[in-house]
């Protein structure tokens, strides 16, 4: 599938917010895990991404771990979250 504009925007946001110096948008596979495996992000990155989603899209994540785990599983699920819950 082709990368949607929103997915590309999210890739840019992830790279800038988390200061991923050696990563380009093309390096992020929309279906690969973002955390631990795949891109290799950690729990501090998850908090940082949560803050970025709040700032840019007005999305407040519930603190319940299981749903956050699903939203943050990969770029596609993150894009789906933004699509359905964005306030701006």
């Amino acid at each position, binding site marked *: 599938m082709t990368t949607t504009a929103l997915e590309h925007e999210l890739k840019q946001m992830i790279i800038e917010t988390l200061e991923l*110096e050696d990563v380009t948008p093309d390096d992020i596979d929309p279906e690969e895990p973002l955390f631990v495996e795949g891109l290799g992000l950690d729990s*501090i990155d998850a908090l940082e991404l949560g*803050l970025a989603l709040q700032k840019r899209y007005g999305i407040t994540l519930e603190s319940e771990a299981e749903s956050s785990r699903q939203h943050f599983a990969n770029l596609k699920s993150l894009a789906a979250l933004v699509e359905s819950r964005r306030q701006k």
Partner: protein
Amino acid sequence: MLRRRLNLLGRAVCDMLATLDPEADRIVLHASRHGDGERTLEMLYGLNEGEPLSPARFGLSVHNATAGVYSIASGNRRSQQAIAASGGEWAALIAEASGYLADGQPSLLLVFGDQPVPQRFAAYAPASLSAAVALRVGSQPTEGARRLVETMTPAGGTTLQPLDVIDWLMGSHQRIACPISQRGWQLESLRS
């Protein structure tokens, strides 16, 4: 991946520690007078504006941030200490190191690093350049090692900074002194 969280000085420290202890199995004592004042001040400005804090930046605003990131990145699980001593950092490092060695540790790592204080506070602290130095010290003579000899010195004079220690280790002068702690040091050949 963790390097991205560190500034240039923190990266230099991690590189030096990896060189001094490839097995990442030594205790680390990390001294810095001011730490990363710039980052902390930026967060305070942000808080004052009602902005949410960046979790990553908050996590790195503590005095043991560099040592902490090093321990995660290298897998070093030994004890660590983060020291600030109002200008007496080098003397405090040597005092702590002496304690560990006397306690039976054969070898440990020392780091002394600092960077300029934020402009806002510059009038209250001596000017300092970004610099860090790391050393491996031990209780037993090893090939190429030198003996560190400590003496009492009179108070007065300028504060000892990382760059002074580097110059001394490179041989630009024989002794260094930490006036606030009234201690001085010189290196002697182990054969003498």
